[in-house]
């Protein structure tokens, strides 16, 4: 039963129709939901504006909300967008969140600062399908289409990188945890003591992680670790 203010009458049938109409509009016109993590103000405003033009419902999330927010949205078909350049000390929690979202088969967009191709490889290993270059954020985000995986041409300048992207496999949770432990500056013995696993297991995780990410040299590996540490000059 519903009371109409203009006609001042009670209606029964119309109400059900009204609800049905509401449900149908919700179903048809429901815009895709997007979670945005970007700690830098200027980038956030530019990204918001661009995504707003594409009719996404945007929710800003900080690092502390990453886990909870994303788990509540498990049922929705949603997109997760993150800028990693300003993540700083929150880097590992952002990466963990990206990994958990990607296992829910959601689309993930990530933009990276100027850095080598190894980072792009790592993102693909986390299950990210759209990798953008942050200096061209606005132009590349404008072209963003969830159905088409996109990697910024900036990261494909090296021929070897372009060739290896197709062979990259997703990391296992244990491999990711090991990479993150290494990026904190721990050595193998410290990790094995901390995780209560054998030294050899740690070595194996590292070896498999490098194999899955198609990291060929130790230099590349150290480059990755340096970035993941969240080395940040402004703070």
């Amino acid at each position, binding site marked *: 039963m519903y009371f109409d203010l203009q006609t001042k009458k009670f209606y029964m049938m119309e109400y059900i129709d009204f609800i049905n109409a509401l449900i149908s509009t919700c179903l048809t016109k429901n815009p895709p939901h997007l979670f945005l993590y970007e*700690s*830098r*103000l*200027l*980038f*956030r*405003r*530019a990204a*918001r*504006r*661009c995504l707003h033009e594409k009719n996404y419902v945007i929710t800003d999330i900080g690092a502390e909300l990453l886990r909870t927010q994303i788990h509540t949205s498990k049922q929705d078909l949603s997109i997760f967008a993150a800028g990693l*350049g*300003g993540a700083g000390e929150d880097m590992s929690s952002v990466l963990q969140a990206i990994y958990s979202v990607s296992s829910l088969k959601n689309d993930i967009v990530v933009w990276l*600062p*100027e850095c*080598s191709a190894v980072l792009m490889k790592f993102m693909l290993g986390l299950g990210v399908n759209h990798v953008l270059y*942050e*200096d*061209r*954020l*606005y*132009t590349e985000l404008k072209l963003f289409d969830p159905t088409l995986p996109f990697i910024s041409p900036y990261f494909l300048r090296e021929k070897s990188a372009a060739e290896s992207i197709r062979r990259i496999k997703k990391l296992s949770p244990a491999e990711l945890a090991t990479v993150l432990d*290494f990026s904190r*500056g721990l*050595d193998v013995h410290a990790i094995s003591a901390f995780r209560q696993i054998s030294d050899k297991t740690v070595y194996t995780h590292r070896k498999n992680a490098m194999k899955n990410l198609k990291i060929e*040299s*130790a*230099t*590349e590996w*150290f*480059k990755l*670790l*340096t970035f993941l*540490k969240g*080395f*940040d*000059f*402004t*703070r």
Partner: protein
Amino acid sequence: MFTFNIVSRIKNPTWYIGLTEMLNTMMLGNPLWKYQWLNVCDVTHTHLIILDFTDVQDNQNLPDQDALLLSMQSGYQLLVLLKSNQQHMAHELYASACSLLFVDERQFHIRNIVELSMKQRRYISPGIERCVACAPVLPLQISFTPAEKKILEGLCRGMNGVEISKMLFRSQKTISTHKRRIMLKLGVKNDYELATKIDFFQATKN
């Protein structure tokens, strides 16, 4: 009604859109205040000129027009955008009179920039302050031998010991010894710390 005139020399659309959005928000909060982007660079009628140096490598080969603007007395009319890995540029520009802003600043208020330029004072963003406060620790205090310098160059380019040994026609053991001495001088224990140190020095050099 007051109109704040801004001349944009921003090449990167991301910074432009970001700043436009922030200025729009400011306009919503202050009904008697508005801004407009101008195309002509006329110093008498503009309140702020925004230059984009985020893709400039060093101070020496700037376009003439930009160099002229930088030498201008009224530095508060000039806002230079930098990225946080351009520490060297930040240090050099701090000596001139212009306002400075890191585009990857986590938090800043566009209101401060506008207000300070009206008060004829320069604006320095928090990141720049921090960067200038801690003078770059260059490895100048540490003296490397010529051989060590060559190897350090190779390491900076991301080469490993074997590649350097092939480049310099020295045995791997020689390279390894030099590298050990470099690590000793830098005070690092393993390859990971060395990579971090090298990354830091490269960033401060830029």
